[in-house]
């Protein structure tokens, strides 16, 4: 069990059967009053944020969660297969857990997989991925301002709006949270 002195950002606790991650906390102690820790928790399954005051002396149950660095191997129907590089153990995860960013995933991409009671419940991608452009119409000559965008297909199949100067064969940096083009990467 944890008590209030264990509370820190990233602590994983179980409340009402759900795993939560501590995202913010503040110690409060009025003169002559009882101390407590005002704590914000994020539900690891739903993303919902709740605030609770944990009194000194109150106990929190540790959540049986585990974060593992893994590598993306391949897609298999609606599932994705990852491998733990430390022990070569493989795990299959439904593509739904990843959401829209699934079309930015290239073989060997390093990710963090969160396990709750030994089951994978969340996959965190790196913020940025670097992908090669495989198809795009040539830009109109003369417009190099970068303000006008055109669609480009990258090696994983995703379609990303890019500036006109981007050509087939270029490698571009993409934000996995927004699917946005960030910059062209020098080779």
């Amino acid at each position: 069990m944890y008590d209030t002195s264990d509370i820190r950002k990233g602590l994983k606790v179980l409340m009402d059967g759900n795993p939560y991650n501590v995202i913010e906390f503040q110690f409060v102690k009025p003169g002559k009053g009882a101390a407590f820790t005002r704590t914000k928790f994020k539900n690891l399954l739903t993303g919902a944020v709740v605030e609770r005051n944990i009194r000194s002396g109150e106990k929190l149950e540790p959540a049986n969660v585990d974060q593992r660095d893994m590598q993306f191997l391949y897609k298999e129907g609606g599932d994705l297969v990852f491998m733990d590089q430390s022990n070569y153990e493989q795990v299959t995860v439904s593509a739904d857990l990843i959401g829209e960013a699934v079309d930015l995933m290239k073989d060997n991409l390093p990710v963090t997989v969160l396990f709750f009671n030994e089951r994978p419940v969340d996959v965190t991608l790196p913020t940025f991925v670097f992908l090669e452009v495989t198809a795009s119409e040539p830009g109109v000559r003369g417009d190099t301002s970068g303000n006008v965008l055109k669609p480009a297909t990258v090696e994983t199949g995703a379609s990303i709006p890019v500036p006109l100067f981007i050509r087939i064969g270029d490698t571009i940096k993409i934000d996995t949270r927004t699917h946005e083009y960030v910059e062209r990467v020098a080779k």
Partner: protein
Amino acid sequence: MILRGRVLAVDEQIAIIRGERGDARVPADPAWRPGDLVELEAEAEAGAGAGDEVGARRVRAYGGPPYPGPGTEVARLPRARMARLHDRARALAALRSFFDGRGFVEVETPLLVPSPGLEIHLEAVPAGAGYLITSPEYQMKRLLAAGFERVYQVCKCFRANERGPHHAGEFTMVEWYRGYAELDAIAADVEALVADVCRAASGRAVARAGGREIDVSPPWPRLTVREAMRRWAGVEVAGDEPAAALAAVVRAAGIEVAADAAWDDAFFAAFLARVEPAIAALDRPLILEAWPAPLAALARRTDEDPRIAHRFEAYVGGLELANAFGELTDPVEQRARFEEDLRIRAARGKARYPIDEKLLAALDEGLPPSAGVALGFDRLVMLATGAASIDQVLAFTADEL
């Protein structure tokens, strides 16, 4: 000749070394960073004046190759924090001069004691055969009983499990007492002391908190706890109502509190939700006075209303800076309150500390009517320097050890 000092500034060609012979300009080494401690062999005799250029070559940085341990940035503190430690030293000097000018004797009482204080919401740190003090109160009162009339102390106090933006488990307390004095004399001391220390830091009687300037020149506005609770929380506090009754009033004001909450928990639910934020928004300090007796374990009750005790808290910029009591001098009532505290501690499963019988004996032999106050020195430095967290005014936090 050898030149030793720290790299004050460095670019591609020139570095300025501040050291034992003042500032010297030397050819730069590309590996240097500001703050590095270096030793040079200078070709010519270096003058002492700033800006003297000496032909030099780097012999070694004292640091040498990185030490193969965890982290190699151990010696570095942020510049802003180092500046605050200078301010802290000035604040301490101003504080001592304040008390010296008012005829106080500085005392040092033991930090390791058999009885650390029974206050329900404080936990002591065990040490050796006893505990580290949570406040020097008991021993300072024995000095008053022995015949001292004006004493002050600046000392470390220790409270287990307290850690936050305004709390450190080890912190510095300023505590002082006046014999034959009322609480008003202590309030005047607090006001003048805070103004003096702020002036020493910034030249003006202003404190800085949350990006605002707060005029701390005396006298400060005053408000009773009853009035503050009425005005800001819409809660009427008598001081002798049952806990359930107070909890009901608090809940009726739209504030969440458990039905079986203890009296003090019901009070603080309303106080923290409504009163503290309102105090924090004031543009002047506040002396919040006339506390309900259940929240004043070592204070005398007032003659006019025994439900109210001689206690005030001084707030500056929303920060609870000092707590003062018109001291309880009656050994019989003091023992009864100690025993009640022990009973509550036991009921709540908290550590049981021994009653300080020597304090009770000293009260019995005669403590003059007195008033005293404990003021958080780290918080005072925060206010004088505009620091947002107590960590910014400490040389090292517990996490950095």
